[in-house]
C-alpha cells in the first residue's frame, strides 16, 4: 500500500499503523507534525489547513509512490488534516515500513519533506496578538501589513 489521504477528523495513528504491517519488514518509521504554540517568535493560538483536495491527493500519492521506488520501502501512508486545529493536535502523520531501518527512515523523511513543498495545502496561523497569516506567503504577509497600515490610517 502506498497512499496519501486527507482527513477532516482528528488523526488516530493507532489505526494507520495496522495497514503498514509486513512480516518481511524489520523497520517502521513514523513522523508526526504537531501544531506548535509558536512560530518564528510569535505565539500561535490555532491553525487552519485548507487543501485543494483532488490535486493534493494526486500529488501526495505520487510522493508516497516515489518514496517506495527510491528507497525500496514496503508500505507507506501519509494522512494530512484539514480544517481548524488546536495547539498540540496532529496535523500530519507519515508511516513507512521497510525491510531495514535505513530505508524506513529515508522514505519517511522524503515523504514529509516533499509533502511540505509540493502538495497544495495551505496553513493559516492565528496569533495571540489577533493577527493571522498564511504561512510561507511573504507577498501575502506584506500586503496584510499594508492593509493593516491603511486601515489604521483610515481609522
Amino acid at each position, binding site marked *: 500500500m502506498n497512499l496519501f489521504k486527507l482527513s477532516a477528523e482528528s488523526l488516530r495513528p493507532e489505526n494507520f499503523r495496522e495497514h503498514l504491517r509486513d512480516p518481511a519488514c524489520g523497520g517502521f518509521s513514523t513522523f508526526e507534525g504537531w501544531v506548535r504554540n509558536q512560530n518564528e517568535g510569535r505565539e500561535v493560538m490555532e491553525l487552519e489547513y*485548507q487543501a485543494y483536495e483532488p490535486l493534493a491527493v494526486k500529488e501526495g500519492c505520487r510522493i508516497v509512490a516515489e518514496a517506495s521506488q527510491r528507497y525500496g520501502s514496503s508500505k507507506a501512508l501519509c494522512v*494530512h488534516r484539514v480544517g481548524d486545529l488546536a495547539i498540540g493536535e496532529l496535523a500530519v502523520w507519515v508511516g513507512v515500513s521497510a525491510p531495514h531501518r535505513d530505508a524506513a527512515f529515508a522514505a519517511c523523511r522524503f515523504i514529509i519533506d516533499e509533502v511540505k513543498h*509540493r502538495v497544495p495545502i495551505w496553513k493559516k496561523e492565528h496569533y495571540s496578538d489577533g493577527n493571522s497569516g498564511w504561512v510561507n506567503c511573504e507577498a501575502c504577509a506584506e500586503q496584510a501589513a499594508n492593509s493593516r497600515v491603511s486601515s489604521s490610517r483610515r481609522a
Partner: protein
Amino acid sequence: ARRKLRIEYFAILRERAGVDCEELDTEASTPAELFEELSQRYAFPVPGQLKVAVNDEFSDWQTLLADGDSVVFIPPVAGG
C-alpha cells in the same frame, strides 16, 4: 473567442476574491492571461511561487484554455 471557465480559490486568493469558486466568461486564453484579469478585479497579491492547475493537474502558464476547463491558482503551499 470567449470561453466559460470554472475557477476555484484557496488561501489568500480565496480571501481576496471573497468566494470559494466561480464561473467566468472570459477572453483569457491562458492561465497567465486569466490571472492578469482576475488580479485586476480582486487586487490579488503576486506570491513569488505562484503555480497553476488546469483540470486538477499542474499546468503551464501558457497552456491554451478550453471551454469548460477548471483553473486553480496555487500560492506557496505550507502543508505539514
